């Protein structure tokens, strides 16, 4: 019943802006929830004025009476007016929830801020206490406390609040931790501000929005616990309260269900209102921002902007390994569709190496993902035609296109560590496609995996097969990924920035490995890169991309000698300015004696 799992957690909340309140009022669910909650608050505050009768006045004629004109909700088993008791009960409910929230805030927020801001021992001690409190079934402790204090209501709600403190602790800690890493905190330190002052001005400001959201949740849970206790007969027996009313109704539920229904509805609606207020606020504050508009059918989409074909097709269709004709890619965003590729044409022949060069955001990766049919769900690609191995893929079903992956096409990703599944061994990840896609037996798959690992320069394949990704180095992970890409004997290898994430010394080895494999298997190789150095090393032809268009294409020597576009010249110059790292790279390469290093 007590727990501090908060739906708000995990979505890093941005600081509450000034517009939060007005944005909240634009959410119908939030407005409705707030209105209901305010109604309960007003009912509770004005109960002495609003209640038609004394909540404790007993009129035997009213015992279990059905609703009538002067007793709108009828009478309870003791002959008291239910509506009046409900109104006065709202006071008790709200008071208890407020006490619990304030206790939770008073205990959890300072401890969380201190733990997140100072870290170290403070963090460890407080976090241990918080975990310990969370692993105690609070109801039992509450009953122990209730046994002694003669069931003093305020003390009970303070205890409830203590069990809510871990929820506040965790959100305050994670916010303080995030703020601590911000550069302006260091600046404030250098400027001579004391910790107390920084905590007060910067950290508390970052913490307050999540604390409000947490309070909406906590208040709801505290109301549940409070009525639960009152239901058991613990708490304010003398004053009207919803839990005791529910108990009364529970006992006469068979004959007079209405007596149970009224307080249950009041409690359910109040808690639901708090929950929706909390979730609306959490939606507004979370950095995820507005949800993207729903996927629309392509027919309803804005007419395609007329685009010119860019780039060139130099091989006949039947002699191409990959051919892309007039590719357009767009992404749905909250502000409408964003075009990232505008009319790209390119092709590559078997045995040829094509480089796609451009700075980040030029659409080069999107181009290859479209060819592989691997765009994210909110991306959309259209083309006049895409051919793989001379076959038009537009004629194929989605499953038919998918069947090309891992068989005709191999893919080498950019960032080696994030492209291996951390939960599975290297061996599993290499063997699973061989068994599932290529229908090899377990033994055959293992043999093939060993073989390709040896081929990519891993000298102890059996050990590496048994490793999990976190147990191998980045360079080795990239070799594993290359092994995975070529294990299925593809005729087309697509490598997306295959060396960018690697150490300079490893980069040269990986490029050399790709070239060797490309020649050995006679594959067509498409390399996406921002680095003309890579192009010079390995490519036959190059397509230069900018703003989703191919601005120049041609043989590598020709482009290096006579760049047709100033942007190309700039890119070439940038990679040559990088001579230091190039020299370093070559030196390392020679030093390694051209032996492949694991």
């Amino acid at each position, binding site marked *: *019943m*007590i*727990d*501090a*799992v908060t*739906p708000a957690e*995990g979505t890093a909340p941005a600081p509450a802006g000034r517009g939060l309140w007005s944005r909240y009022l634009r959410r119908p669910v939030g407005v409705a929830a707030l209105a209901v909650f305010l109604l309960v608050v007003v009912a509770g505050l004005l109960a002495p004025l609003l209640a038609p009768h004394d909540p404790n006045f007993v009129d035997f004629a009213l015992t279990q009476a059905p609703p009538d004109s002067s007793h709108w909700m009828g009478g309870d088993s003791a002959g008291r007016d239910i509506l009046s008791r409900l109104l006065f009960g709202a006071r008790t409910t709200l008071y208890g929830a407020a006490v619990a929230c304030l206790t939770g805030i008073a205990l959890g927020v300072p401890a969380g801020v201190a733990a997140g801001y100072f870290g170290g021992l403070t963090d460890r001690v407080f976090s241990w206490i918080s975990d*310990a409190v*969370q*692993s*105690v*079934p609070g*109801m*039992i*402790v509450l*009953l*122990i*406390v209730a*046994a*002694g204090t003669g069931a003093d209501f305020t003390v009970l709600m303070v205890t409830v609040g203590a069990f809510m403190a871990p929820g506040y602790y965790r959100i305050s800690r994670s916010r303080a931790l995030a703020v601590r890493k911000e550069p302006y905190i260091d600046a404030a330190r250098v400027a001579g501000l004391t910790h107390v002052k920084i905590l007060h001005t910067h950290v508390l400001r970052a913490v307050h929005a999540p604390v409000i959201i947490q309070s909406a949740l906590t208040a709801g*849970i505290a109301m*549940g616990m409070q*009525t*639960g206790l009152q239901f*058991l007969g613990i708490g304010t027996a003398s004053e009207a309260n919803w839990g005791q009313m*529910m108990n009364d109704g*529970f006992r006469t*539920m068979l004959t007079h269900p209405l007596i149970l*229904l009224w307080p*249950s509805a009041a409690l*359910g609606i109040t*808690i*639901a209102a*708090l*929950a*929706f207020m909390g979730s609306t606020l959490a939606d507004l504050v979370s950095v995820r921002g507005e949800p993207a508009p729903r996927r629309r059918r392509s027919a309803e989409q804005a007419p395609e902007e007329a685009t010119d074909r860019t780039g060139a097709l130099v091989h006949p269709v039947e002699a191409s390994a990959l051919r892309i004709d007039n590719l357009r890619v767009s992404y749905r965003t909250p502000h409408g569709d964003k075009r990232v590729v505008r009319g790209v044409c390119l092709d590559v022949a078997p045995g040829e190496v094509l480089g796609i060069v451009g700075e980040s955001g030029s659409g080069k990766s999107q181009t290859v*993902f479209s060819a592989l049919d*691997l765009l*994210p769900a909110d991306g959309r690609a259209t083309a006049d035609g895409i051919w793989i191995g001379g076959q038009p893929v537009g004629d194929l079903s989605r499953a038919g296109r*998918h*069947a090309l*992956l*891992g068989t005709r*096409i*191999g893919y080498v*990703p*950019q*960032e080696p560590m*994030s*492209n*291996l*599944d*951390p*939960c599975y061994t290297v061996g599993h990840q290499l063997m*699973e*496609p061989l068994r*599932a896609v290529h229908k090899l037996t377990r033994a055959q798959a293992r043999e093939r995996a060993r073989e390709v690992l040896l081929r990519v320069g891993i000298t102890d394949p059996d050990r590496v097969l048994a490793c*999990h990704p976190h147990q191998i180095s980045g360079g080795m992970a990239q070799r594993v990924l290359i092994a*995975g890409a070529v294990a*299925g004997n593809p005729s087309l290898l697509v490598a997306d920035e295959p060396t960018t994430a690697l150490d300079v010394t490893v980069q040269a080895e990986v490029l050399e490995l790709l070239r060797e494999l490309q020649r050995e298997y006679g594959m067509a190789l498409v390399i996406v890169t921002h680095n003309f150095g890579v192009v010079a090393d390995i490519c036959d032809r190059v397509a230069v991309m900018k703003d989703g268009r191919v601005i120049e294409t041609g043989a590598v020597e020709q482009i290096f000698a006579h760049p047709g576009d100033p942007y190309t010249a700039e890119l070439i110059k940038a990679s040559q300015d990088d001579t230091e790292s190039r020299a370093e790279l070559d030196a390392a390469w020679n030093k390694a004696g051209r032996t492949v290093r694991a």
Partner: protein
Amino acid sequence: MIRFTLRRLLSGAVLLVVVTSASFFLAHLAIGDPTPGLLGDSATPAQRAALREQLGLDRPLMTQFWDWLSHAVRGDFGTSWRNFQPVSDQIELRVPVTLSIVVAATLLAAVVGLVVGVATGLNPGGVLARVLKLASVVLFALPGFWVSLMLVMAFAIKLQWFPAVGYVPLSHSGTQWLRSITLPSIALALGAIVMIAEQLRNGFQEVNNQDFVRTLRARGLSARRVTVHVLRNASPAALTVLAVMFVGLLGGAIVVEIIFNLPGIGSLTQSASQIGDIPVLLGLTVVTVVFVVLVNFLLDLVLGWVNPKVREK
């Protein structure tokens, strides 16, 4: 692996000792003199003093504490102050009832939460995902006893599908037992179901955006096989919620048991707290914390199996 296990067991033992010790002092501090509760208001001061002496309450608190702790570590929780029956006998009688509904609720939450979580994770824009989001907001906050009352009204009284109250032991009749724990288990599980489903749905979205999922697709793996990878990566957060929920369910079971008139630890806790029967209350605390420690230990083992990286931290 062995060091990991030992370390986990040790920290569980420390938690157990700290929490139960704290409960000991809290109970004595809160209750003070239990004799009015035990003997009633009509007892004379002499009778009360005699009972205090008999229960050993006239000794210094630290002496009482060491006495209790040294017996407790050997599994002896003393006798009830009310009926002088061994505490462990009473708890033994009632734990199976509570465990029946808590374990059933946990299984229900795990299975239904998994199915709904995967279904909404695979289709995050679908109708089910919207319903889940709505349900998770409300059901997370609504207390189990409130849900119990609604379920009783609907399914036991209106539709009469299930008995409203009472417990049939498993040894007596399997189907009757199942019928008697169905509503209480559902009442306890509803909140946990939506929390776990919501956690999995979020996890799916996060994992789906990770690079290795695209690479798995690029290797030609079927959608079903990729889903297995995504699920395994998304499950740690959901499993953690399940373990936290288990603690919550133990507490929530107390009120739910009373509503359904189940002879579990709930009614024992309630009656013991009303008369200040400290040995019974402490025995109950130890038992529940032991369950919590065991569940957390199991969770750590499972998390370590799901993603071996966590074992090495």
